[in-house]
């Protein structure tokens, strides 16, 4: 083994290290922030709710989360400056009044990963809801992270 081979091996090692450093950056798996994902159920069965409109009370410009859509799931974004958010579920159906869901929570700034960056995680401390079309709500894991999984189960009547 001569110095010439040593030099070549060193070059190969440097190129491999540079490639490895470049390839170690993966894409973010999950959301870019902590956000609850609510899903609708009847009993143990997931269901779709037709003509559903959802919005947050106090959102700027009365912006809607979903607008008159058939939905089985809906993201409920939480405010980072308040400790409580209220959402209205409008079923756009005669004879069924709107439901309101209130989520009370605490928030924690969190650095998830190099790929996903920094965000807020939330801990749901309590919740309330009206009972026009909703039977009950379950939040089995109150910690809301950026993981793209159902965290709020809304059981319909």
């Amino acid at each position, binding site marked *: 083994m001569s110095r010439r081979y040593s030099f070549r091996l060193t070059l190969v090692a440097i190129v491999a290290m540079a490639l490895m450093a470049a390839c170690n950056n993966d894409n973010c798996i999950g959301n870019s922030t902590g956000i609850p994902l609510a899903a609708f159920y009847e009993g143990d069965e997931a269901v779709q709710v037709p003509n559903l409109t959802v919005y947050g009370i106090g959102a700027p410009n009365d912006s809607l989360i979903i607008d008159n859509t058939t939905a089985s799931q809906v993201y409920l974004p939480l405010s980072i400056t308040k400790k409580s958010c209220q959402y209205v579920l409008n079923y756009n159906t005669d004879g069924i009044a709107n439901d309101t869901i209130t989520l009370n929570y605490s928030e924690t700034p969190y650095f998830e990963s190099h790929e996903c960056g*920094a965000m807020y995680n939330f801990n749901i401390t309590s919740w309330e809801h009206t009972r026009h079309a909703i039977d009950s709500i379950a939040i089995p894991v109150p910690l809301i992270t950026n993981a793209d999984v159902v965290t709020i189960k809304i059981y319909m009547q």
Partner: protein
Amino acid sequence: MKQVLISILCVAYMMAATGIMRAQDQQRKVTPVKPSTNKVLTPPKGTDEKIIQQYLSGDSAQARAQERKDSLAKIYPRYPKLTELSLGLNFGDAIVMAFGQKYSSFGVSATLNMWNRFQPMMELGIGRAKDTPDDMDYTYSGKIAPYVKIGANYNFLFKSEPRYQLYAGVRLGFSTFKYDINDIVINNPYWGEYQNLQLKGLSSNALWGEALAGLKVNIASNWSLGWEVKFHGIFKYKKSENGKPWYIPGYGTRNGKWAFGLSLYYTIPLSRDRWPVKEEKKKK
């Protein structure tokens, strides 16, 4: 008179008996035979004179043991327990940083080469990181922090001179460190919110393991270069309330599974007078 005569006869008998025994001994030494065939044995060419003498004297077990020992010594040249000590500097990251890598570790190591085969080692070093990823709203700042690794190599070229080594090894590493996440921008478009914040002084520690293959080549005098490819994994690391570390000193990025190492070594031979001598040199 009668007693004198008996004494003379006894002495004569003893002398005769001794003569017969000597003759038998001489016969056994001169013509060793294989008992099963009665074929006269002749030693192969080049057999050590000492071994031939041991065979002729009838001590064949000792001769065979000596032969085996000599033969093994030829096949497996045995280096002394303390063959050499290598002091290394891990400098690969210094070069790769020039190609855009945002983190680096530098370590000094001591490797004891035992029998030119087993090589316990220890490495002490420091690592740091600073990165503001493209399209992301934060700066990761890993403060300079120490790490330690212990482990061992097995040199597959133990029959050859220690100047060239091809080895496999394992390492156990540990580091305790702190990091900041600065210039974080949080946008919450639905609620029309915007925040700028920092996470300071997050602390963590990590314990990890490495399996590696390496090549070490003497380049000049006592200096050698070493290349290593490592597969590593974290056994345990500490998450803080505000996050998980991206970079671990001595390990690299937390999600990385493979790594390369580049090191410069200075080797101090130990017990040099007990190293096996090459056959060619022996003949000269």
